[in-house]
């Protein structure tokens, strides 16, 4: 390597260094981890009195919590929505009387709606249909295969008796799951 080549390489090296000093933090900055917008709710949350739930008709309940959106943080915000389906009391004794589902469509994340007949659910975005038990179904009209990669995401749900006033409460553990995957993967 002669002197000329050395100087050429030196110049290139220094230019690259300067580019890296600015560029790497830039990429890091854009892709860096941003605090997740909703605090993961791990506890059971009390949502509804059992007696207030109609039997066999799905009801959507917003779940409130503390929401963080970049620099803004606010309490009492809707952090998720659950669909509650109360089954007739005669249903299998071992099962919970109420089933809860996350309202987020496992396909692309639209809000799942109740079908007009209340006999199931349908997602308005790509018409994925689900039964009252959250199972995937073909499109009720065109019989097309569902776009949903999996059934609706059911959530842990329990009915607790309040000894103080005899009320039965429906409590649900809200969780978010990865979209688009066949398995339920809890979003971290």
């Amino acid at each position, binding site marked *: 390597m002669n002197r000329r080549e050395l100087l050429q390489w030196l110049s290139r090296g220094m230019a690259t260094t300067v580019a890296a000093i600015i560029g790497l933090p830039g990429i890091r900055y*854009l*892709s860096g981890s*941003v*605090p*997740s*917008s*909703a605090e993961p709710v791990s*506890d*059971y*949350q*009390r949502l*509804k*009195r059992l007696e*207030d739930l109609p039997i066999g008709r799905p009801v959507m309940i917003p779940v*409130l919590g503390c929401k963080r*959106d*970049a*620099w*803004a943080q606010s309490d*009492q915000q*809707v952090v998720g*929505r659950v669909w509650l389906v109360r089954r007739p009391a005669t249903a299998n004794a071992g099962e919970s009387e109420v089933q809860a589902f996350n309202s987020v469509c496992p396909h*692309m*994340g*639209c*809000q799942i*709606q109740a079908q*007009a007949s209340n006999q199931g659910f349908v997602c*308005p*975005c*790509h018409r994925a249909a689900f039964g009252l038990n959250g199972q995937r179904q073909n499109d009720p009209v065109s019989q*097309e*295969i*569902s*776009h949903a*990669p999996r059934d609706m995401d059911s959530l842990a749900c329990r009915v*607790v*008796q*309040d*000894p*103080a006033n005899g009320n039965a*409460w429906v*409590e649900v553990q809200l969780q978010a799951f990865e*979209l*688009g995957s066949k398995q339920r993967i809890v*979003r971290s």
Partner: protein
Amino acid sequence: MCALLNWLDQRLDYRRHIALLRRRVLPNGPSWWSTSASCLMWLLLIECITGLLLMSTYSPSMASAWASVNFTDQSAAGRFLRGVHHYSSHALIILFGLHLVRVVITGAYRAPRELVWITGLLLFPLILVWTVTGNPLASSQKGIAQIQVEGNILAATPFVGPWFQRILFGGRDIGNLTLTRLHFLHVGLLPLLVGGLFLLHLHQVIKHSSYRPGVAADQAPLKPLLHYWPYQSVRNMTMLVLLVGTISGISWQWGAPLSAPADPELPFSPRPEWYFRWLFELRRHFTGDTEFVATMVVPAAFLAAFMLLPFLDRLLSTRFDRLCRLLVVVACAAGWGWLTYLSFDRDWNDPEYIASMVEFERLSERARELARSEAMPVAGAVELLRHDPQTQGPRLFARHCSSCHTMTDADDNGMTVAESSAPNLRGIGTATWIVGFFDLDQISGKNYFGNTAFHDGEMKQHIQTLFAENDRSALQEQFRTVAVALAAEAGHEVYESAEAQRGRSLIVGKLRCTDCHQFHNQGSLGSAPDLTGYASTEWLTGLISNPSSRRFYGDRNDRMPAFAADSAHPEFNLLSTLELDLLVKWLTGLPGDSNLAHSQKANNPAQPPASHPQPHEVAVKTELQATP
């Protein structure tokens, strides 16, 4: 002046460059077809200028984006500029498509112009992405729902998808950072990329264009060669004027659309813009694991195939090449058009979709109306519709009341129930509504007590007795007066009018209402609902909260649930404080008790204070207690 220009020219040599551009000739002479390129360039410039102007008002955050865009729309010039910015982007895409078609048909991408073609082709997806990043900036329901799905499509790209989505959204979910990122892309990064690519494109166009007389001369020896300036330029400008004229006409007339502020509560079925409809249709045929074929592989394959066109083109025999190119264009256009048509056709034939769109358009109109008449809430435009009785009332009524109550006019229009088991609430508290209670047929009809436990109750019997004891027409006149007096309790009639005064004395006097009802300081509670403040917002709030309280029906309450009886746990009540307030305001059509309370206090100090609960935004959620 001339001296200054000369001085400049000596240093910049600009006249020579301009002359080169002007003296260019087109191989086939000037033509209308060739105007597309120039129009595209000027439209791009218009987009940049209008965009820059709009930037002076826009504020990218969830709380302010919609409000700031709406604010822009409120000045005539702002509305016009936003319209031009919006419609030009659509025009740009259409024109770009036509431009590509022209280039393919004429084979203008051939050597040595491959780079002209490739840079131009790359500009197309970039411009599409540019519009994609612009649409959600207003943080309207439509834009946000679109970017949500688009982001999730991006996330479905193998390997790098989730990472890209994180960069785009600034996190896992749409929020403040999503808007700042989109803004950054829309006004920062993409203009730089498009600008750079465009300059390269322009450089290649000019370098390989036919301004060199030699090239043109041997291609068109028979025609006289006309210079670009002014023969092509005048055509370019004519097209541009037509185009901009149309765009500005549309913008002036309608402005750019602005749908309701984004709110997951709103019913909405997101659809992509028209230029992506073909992919939306295509993906219907790819479910599950193959989905990314439609969203990623197909568009990428098309782009790659077109980029290679100058090289593939050489393989074709020269005899049929023009025909082949034509076939390619027709096939692509037909495929695109067919898929697009299918997609729109499906939606137009879906009554559910149409209904949801109509409803959504109504809500958007209402949101804009509220934004004009009300102060913008600090928490953002999303609060406008959430606190609007006219929007929330019917929904709350449908969800909570309409399984028993109807709300229909005389022609049975409105909310009906298969089996109504409670009074029709249309016009509740007004004199016309109240007077129905004093009519024997009506009180036991379906609109009043007919389907309730009171269909043959003491109220009806009392009316019967009164009719038996009195002259019929005189009594009816008195009943009307009483109805006016009761309607005045809620503020539907003027409280101080002579008629209302007479009605009030009839209630406590001749008609003996206070035998059962309480009315101000006469009568007592316990056997019939309180008539003080009858059907006012405060009274209705009390009744709906707990109809079985002593002030209303007590233990004679017939099946009506208590919607907000639990003051210790308001969050678990069937209706939150806010919902109850909205419902009552909508039912009565009264703005609130404030005006009424004022007028009553002035003239009648004995009135009970019209205290009505302040709307709370969200019920307070207490910590979990008493879990076994």
